[in-house]
């Protein structure tokens, strides 16, 4: 895996193209959502509800099959991919077909249809341009929507010139003409056409096939026989359910409002009035789906609509591409799918996931992909063991406690070259990564001597997490001071750290145990009227989004709903706060939004806070992670620091180009990444203000 990651990073041209595809996908998607005036939360709720019913109700597939038969079609339930391939072979043989034409179908790739047919002497001709190019090259698709994104037009022209035996110029239009001319007779001669199906509709026994190129139209109209392959989770009850899915596919995949050709097929039509021998077959594929449906940890994966949005936002996929970050199903959602359909052994790319959580945020079906990935990692480390560096970072709290006790010594050690080399060799912590120095006195020990104030407005339990407790207690103190000025009584509860590395590295048992400990402390406080506030976005993300997954029951949900990011929390009372800038406000503050805050408030309250203190603030963003992803970017080597910096480089470049005078972010680890990448001081928003009446 490390070798493959290295190769990906060292091919900057290819990475650049993939990154561009992802950026364009995200930008088009956002623009279309805005232009269409789509109420996204409501849309997500509807799509989710439609998909949950489709994926979980086994009677829908039965009703669909019955309706297809009533329309005159034939239905085959394939329990496995092998059975589906065999059915296709039988259909080809019965019709004397030596080849078939196929429009793009990920389901056919899942069952390795082309290989299965080829072994029996039948050629499957891919007709989607990108898939065709991959087929000619003998390579796997590297992107769900743009399968041949890794090929340049020069390379494509050379490849097709050789394959077709005629000179083809490297202009995209020449390539297009050559492919059109080459494929046309194959369409016209084909006896069998194979498609996937984006949706099945039970009430009328129909399928929906969406293509932009029009190949789906030809595959389903010219050949005498049409076979559609459909996963059993894709069937909805009614046409009204299909509308949101048609919309969701296009917007999330390419940012189109609608795919160019959306074909709603219910039966084979006659041609020129002659219905002779026109056959319609539907293969309903299980291949592990019923097993997934029965597995509470993974059934959410069945809600996937195959739009590829999660790939377009995944930071490490963006650098490594689908050949490394995928088996057959690529990208984030590919991890649970691969683990359940193709087996855990094929899903080792799970460890490329950095747990930034963005795939969940962008998913049009609100699938908790990060949670399923954590489950896959959990199963994988049980079988294959845990790297030392990951074990070290999961012990961060213990390390921080000890380091604080001997802070000068520890800080001296962390700054010494030979010591870092030793640390890299023994613990797998990259020597190049700046680690935050430890404070002589922890936040708790400094607060202990303060006089507690009376709470006029309310009560706050301040959750420091590691950074504000052990590395930067000044930050914690400033936050507490502001809370007290606003009239809150503040205490630091006897909690431990939030424990994100346990989730990132698949130790969900330990994560749950830690969550339970913290919840036992926080639950009673919430009952007494306390709100929980933290300056660390990841801590709030854990409390609000992850603990309810780790610990069943109402306690976690209650604590989660009372947990707030610091700036989000103080916003209600901020008008009364005498905020003054501590730096020159003539310049612009470049603001970085930490990934975990995308699931919370996307940095908006912190930016408004800075604006109130007279700063001009501008978001600088690539639309994905800065790359450090907690402790991922602290691990040494290609599966840590190198990959992390390769992801970060795009963001560093944007900051360099932005001309911003100051750089700020709320997250302690993003601060390290931006500091290392930009070679300048990164500030917390609280560093940029002072309260009138204090130093």
């Amino acid at each position: 895996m490390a070798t493959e990651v290295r190769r990906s990073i060292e091919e900057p041209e290819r990475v650049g193209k993939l990154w561009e595809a992802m950026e364009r996908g995200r930008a088009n998607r956002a623009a279309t959502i805005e232009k269409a005036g789509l109420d996204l939360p409501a849309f997500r709720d509807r799509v989710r509800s439609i998909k949950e019913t489709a994926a979980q109700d086994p009677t829908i597939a039965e009703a669909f099959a019955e309706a297809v038969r009533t329309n005159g079609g034939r239905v085959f339930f394939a329990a496995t991919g092998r059975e589906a391939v065999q059915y296709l072979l039988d259909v080809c043989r019965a019709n004397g077909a030596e080849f078939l034409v196929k429009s793009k179908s990920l389901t056919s790739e899942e069952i390795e249809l082309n290989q299965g047919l080829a072994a029996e002497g039948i050629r499957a001709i891919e007709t989607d341009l990108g898939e065709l190019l991959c087929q000619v090259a003998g390579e796997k698709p590297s992107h769900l929507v743009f399968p041949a994104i890794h090929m340049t037009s020069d390379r494509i022209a050379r490849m097709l010139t050789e394959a077709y035996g005629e000179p083809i110029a490297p202009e995209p239009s020449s390539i297009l003409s050559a492919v059109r001319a080459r494929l046309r007779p194959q369409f016209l001669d084909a006896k069998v056409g194979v498609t996937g199906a984006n949706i099945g509709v039970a009430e009328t026994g129909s399928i929906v096939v969406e293509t932009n190129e029009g190949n789906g139209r030809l595959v389903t109209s010219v050949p005498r026989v049409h076979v559609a392959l459909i996963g059993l989770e894709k069937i909805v009850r009614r046409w009204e359910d299909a509308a949101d899915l048609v919309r969701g596919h296009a917007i999330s995949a390419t940012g189109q409002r609608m795919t160019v050709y959306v074909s709603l097929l219910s039966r084979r039509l006659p041609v020129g009035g002659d219905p002779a021998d026109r056959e319609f077959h539907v293969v309903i594929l299980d291949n592990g789906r019923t097993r997934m449906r029965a597995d509470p940890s993974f059934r959410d994966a069945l809600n996937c609509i195959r739009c590829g949005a999660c790939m377009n936002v995944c930071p490490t996929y963006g650098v490594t591409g689908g050949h490394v970050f995928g088996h057959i199903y690529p990208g984030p959602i590919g991890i649970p799918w691969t683990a359940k359909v193709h087996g855990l052994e094929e899903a080792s790319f799970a460890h490329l996931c950095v747990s930034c959580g963005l795939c969940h945020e962008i998913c049009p079906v609100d699938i908790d992909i990060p949670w399923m990935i954590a489950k896959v990692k959990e199963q994988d480390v049980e079988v294959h063991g845990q790297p030392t560096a990951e074990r070290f970072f999961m012990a961060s709290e213990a390390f921080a406690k000890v380091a604080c006790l001997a802070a000068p010594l520890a800080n001296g050690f962390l700054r010494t070259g030979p010591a870092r080399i030793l640390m890299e060799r023994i613990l797998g912590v990259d020597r190049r990564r700046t680690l935050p120095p430890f404070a002589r006195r922890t936040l708790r020990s400094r607060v202990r001597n303060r006089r507690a104030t009376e709470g006029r407005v309310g009560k706050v339990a301040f959750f420091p997490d590691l950074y504000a407790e052990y590395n930067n207690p000044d930050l914690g103190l400033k936050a507490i001071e502001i809370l007290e000025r606003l009239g809150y009584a503040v205490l630091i509860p006897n909690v431990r750290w939030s424990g994100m590395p346990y989730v990132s590295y698949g130790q969900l048992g330990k994560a749950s145990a830690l969550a339970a400990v913290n919840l036992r402390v926080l639950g009673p406080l919430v009952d007494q009227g306390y709100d929980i506030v933290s300056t660390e976005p990841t801590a709030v993300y854990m409390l609000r989004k992850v603990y309810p997954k780790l610990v069943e029951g109402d306690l976690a949900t209650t604590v989660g709903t009372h947990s707030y990011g610091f700036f989000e929390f103080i916003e209600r009372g901020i008008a009364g706060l005498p905020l003054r800038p501590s730096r020159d406000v003539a310049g612009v503050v470049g603001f970085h939004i930490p990934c975990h805050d995308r699931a919370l408030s996307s940095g908006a309250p912190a930016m408004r806070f800075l604006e109130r203190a007279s700063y001009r603030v501008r978001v600088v963003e690539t639309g994905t992670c800065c790359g450090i992803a907690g402790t991922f970017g602290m691990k040494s080597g290609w599966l840590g620091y190198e990959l992390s910096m390769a992801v970060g480089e795009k963001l560093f470049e944007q900051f360099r180009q932005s001309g911003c005078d100051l750089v700020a972010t709320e997250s302690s680890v993003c601060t390290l990444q931006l500091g290392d990448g930009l070679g300048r001081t990164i500030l917390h928003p609280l560093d940029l203000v002072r309260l009138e009446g204090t130093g």
Partner: protein
Amino acid sequence: MTSAGDNLGLARCGLVREAHKPSRVTSSIGGGTVLSEPELSDRFKAALLELKAEPHSATRRENTPDILRSVVEGHQANRVVVANLPAELRAMVSGALKGRSVQFLEDLPSKDVLGACAAAEVGVTWAEFAIAEDGAIVEVAHDDMVRLAASLPIVHVVLLPAGRLVRDVGEAMTVVGGILRASGPGERPTVTFISGPSRTGDIELRLLYGVHGPHSLHVVLLDWYVGR
């Protein structure tokens, strides 16, 4: 300030739109209902242009043949196949394209249909209605000669009564669901939403038209015709 999270286009930047209430029912087809509002027509034309489809307004019966002629001449095309037109429009089309090879697929033996479509440069077909906001025409085919005529030639010309517009894909699905439910199991048509010419971004993300289907889509909006 850039609004937070807008590169993700997530909840924070979603706009809330009031649920649409259709104002006027103008016609119905096969159990489905087609709704129309005057301003939808402008939105439809704008959406077509954005999708690189070409709208043409046929305001009167008399200027419709000129539009058809100029489209076909513009592509220097000689071979035209026609399918699925209402009977009263067939004479108009053949008159407009006099001097060229115009084949009405309904008149051909079935074995000749595929060859005729493959050889044609222009396919002229009919749309039952269109989806305004999405710039999509809706083809309802009871015979695959319609889909072949609209897919194989490099130019697709589609005729559409100008008033038959629904707002969005949600309304379109309601109409189509009605059509499909009302048809008997052995009679269900194949319905296709077509929004623009055939396209791909598969080579270096460059948007190219006319991969396997038409590279040009002309939508002739018939102001004077209310449909069959």
